[in-house]
């Protein structure tokens, strides 16, 4: 960071915000969804394919450190289930915090609840009138919030499948959302650039932050919910103070690095961002330093999420536009495993809260959710 001698107000103009006209959003928002014959097509099958051997490693990582990498343990994820049931592009998959359920959503107006262990469909949550972009579980796994293109958010009681709260306030599509740890707050980002903070008990909007100039693609609370991180297609990552809505920090990488997913690390010391220059970065947001860069996958067009995997080794997991899922070693930044199987872009990944299990979801021509796990017991 440069210490520019700008006393008073530094100018805030469009020079800092890279234009992003050429970015096409993930195609999960089919605006004119008309053919939803979903209930008929729910099938689940155990995938007959044998799991692929882990991809060769050292060659794929041009950044490999010389000494410490050789002895490191590698993950060995194998395909457990291929879940078919979605009829339109999947936008998000999320494990419940108690680990018993998997929720997924896509362009077809409903949330689907699955068993991650058997791959069976448990329930559909119906009610939204447009496609869905994101879902989030409350920390007690009782409620699930869903963000829809019908500009509303619904909070569902998952057991009964009923809408408990219908959160209205966004003026355009709601693109992302997350609960805080106490689950008394919900933060959501919309395509109008606004970030809203909701009281989940009453379903009322508490605060609107006019956060960005373009689609807000991810929002996340830190561990104690004092901070919110948001990122947008305007190319910026911003950190906000939850209690008064002040902007505390802005992170920006180069003009080509339009960020589309961001989250805090489990201890909230760092943030992990994925960007359209096919790089995933781990930032120290206190010092605005990029600590790690994970490359090797392809990500230039879609909003692809990344996640931390901390149940076994410490990995970073993300989907890719070459239809694969990549796993990096957190410390060495090497690719340690590549999961192949999807036949289209992998936009959604999720890690199980305490087992070595992954869920991945893909779009258009694939439409499956795949469950992967490491070191099977049987």
């Amino acid at each position: 960071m440069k210490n520019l001698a700008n006393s008073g107000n530094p100018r805030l103009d469009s020079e800092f915000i890279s234009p992003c006209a050429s970015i096409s959003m993930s195609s999960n928002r089919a605006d004119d969804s008309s053919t939803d014959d979903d209930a008929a097509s729910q099938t689940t099958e155990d995938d007959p394919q044998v799991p692929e051997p882990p991809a060769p490693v050292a060659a794929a990582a041009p950044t490999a450190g010389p000494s410490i990498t050789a002895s490191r343990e590698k993950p060995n994820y194998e395909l457990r289930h291929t879940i078919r049931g979605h009829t339109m592009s999947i936008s998000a998959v999320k494990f419940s915090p108690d680990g018993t359920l998997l929720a997924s959503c896509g362009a077809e107006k409903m949330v689907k609840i699955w068993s991650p262990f058997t791959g069976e469909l448990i329930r559909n949550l119906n009610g939204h009138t447009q496609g869905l972009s994101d879902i989030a579980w409350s920390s007690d796994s009782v409620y699930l919030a869903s963000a829809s293109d019908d500009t509303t958010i619904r909070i569902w009681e998952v057991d009964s499948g009923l809408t408990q709260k219908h959160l209205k306030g966004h003026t355009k599509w709601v693109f992302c959302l997350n609960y805080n740890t106490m689950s008394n707050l919900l933060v959501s980002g919309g395509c109008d650039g606004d970030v809203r903070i909701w009281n989940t008990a009453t379903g009322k909007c508490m605060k609107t932050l006019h956060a960005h100039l373009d689609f807000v693609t991810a929002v996340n609370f830190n561990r104690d919910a004092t901070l919110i991180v948001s990122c947008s297609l305007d190319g910026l990552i911003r950190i906000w103070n939850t209690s008064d809505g002040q902007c505390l920090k802005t992170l920006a990488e180069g003009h080509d690095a339009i960020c589309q997913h961001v989250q805090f690390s489990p201890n909230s010391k760092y943030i992990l961002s994925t960007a359209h220059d096919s790089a995933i970065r781990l930032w120290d947001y206190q010092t605005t330093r990029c600590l790690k860069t994970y490359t090797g996958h392809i990500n230039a067009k879609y909003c692809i999420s990344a996640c931390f995997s901390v149940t076994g080794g410490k990995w970073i997991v993300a989907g890719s536009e070459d239809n694969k899922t990549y796993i990096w070693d957190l410390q060495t930044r090497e690719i340690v495993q590549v999961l192949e199987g999807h036949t289209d872009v992998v936009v959604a990944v999720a890690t199980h809260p305490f087992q070595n299990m992954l869920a991945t979801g893909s779009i258009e021509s694939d439409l499956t959710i795949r469950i992967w796990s490491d070191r099977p017991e049987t």
Partner: protein
Amino acid sequence: MNESLISPFNITHPTTVQTSLFALASFARFDPTGRYVATARVDGTAAIWDLDTRAAVRVLDGHVKAVSNLDWSRHSRYVLTASKDWNVVVWDLASSCVPAQRCATLRFDAPVVSAAFHPRNSHIILALMSTGEAYLIDQRKAHRARIELCEQQEESDDEGAGSSTRTRSAITVARFDPSGKHIFMGTSGGYILVFNTRTKTMVARHKITGAGAIKGLEFTKTGRQLVSNSADRTLRQFTVPMYPSPTTDGAYIEQELEPTHRFNDPINRTAWHAMSYSPDGEWLAGGAADTATHKIYIWDISNEGQFANALDGGREPLLHLHWHPFKSSIASTTNQGNILIWHCPHPERWGAFAGGFEELDENVEYEEREDEFDIEDEADMIRRKMKEEEEEVDIDTIPEAAKPRDVQLHGVQAGDEDVAWADEEPDDDVQDWKMRVIMEEDWDI
């Protein structure tokens, strides 16, 4: 966690009202986790407010007369409400019944003016009646008892008549110290009595010269300092002496306590309704019993008790105030029942909106470094970046500083038998329990 991003120079006492809660309350207390505020109302109900959402999350309806006092257990799971209807009710916030169900009721034979949980065990409750009697109620199976704490009278050798005519002065305030080892009680005669909680015997009696009836007692978080409010409209701060373990023969210390500081309003001579220390004990806030304005006086204890600020909260007179357990925030209650949450505002930093900018307080001559605009070889740059990225990161251990710490309490040593006694039959008020969110259309308050 956001402190490090907000401001390096923290002004550590609140200065402005951040929000006000329309609670119809007679007083409000923060919980030990700092997430909630409990408010008590004259109609006998109490409410728990979530400070994140600034909305009521529980309504506790269990009394037919005004709630006179309210206390939180150590990790905020239990709340007790004391009322003028002669009852003390204990509530378990972990239950998600609507309406909330009481988990215990203690009945007395006089209106209860105050009640408190033992700081280490919610099964031990101290209650004070409006008739001036204090009771220690122990609900643990092995210790089940309700004992009145009586002031020991001086032994009369020859003036037997004199001592019997001397009426026992009424107890006007009763508090546990932060460790729970001792109970401090103020009397209408201007004494502070100190009882050992375990043995229920008096260990000390302190005369506070010139104070008159004691109206309030507050401790710092460590229990090292004590401030008293009394009928002479002066707040006195004392350093709490170390008390020896109680002896069997019932001996006690008779000692006059000399205040280290006196705080009063020399001009208007206003009385004080309430006082509260900041969590670090460096500030003392006093709520003035002014009938026309809402005034909070702040004294800087670390700076010889100098008067630091008077906060003006508008026209609704103040009834009560309480400092947040770890933040620079105060909850003060107006006589209209509104809770004002005071905070210390951070100036908006517009530089935060632009990445890579830093705001400077004043212009500086910028000196370019010799190599600042040299073009570095790209390969070198990548190599250097790669080298930097070798550094190990830790993404999932929660830093020790972020966890709540136990403060070193005054007069507590390792293996203290009073502490061990209080920890017998512990309650299920564990550190990391979470209050469930209950979806409600609108709380009926």
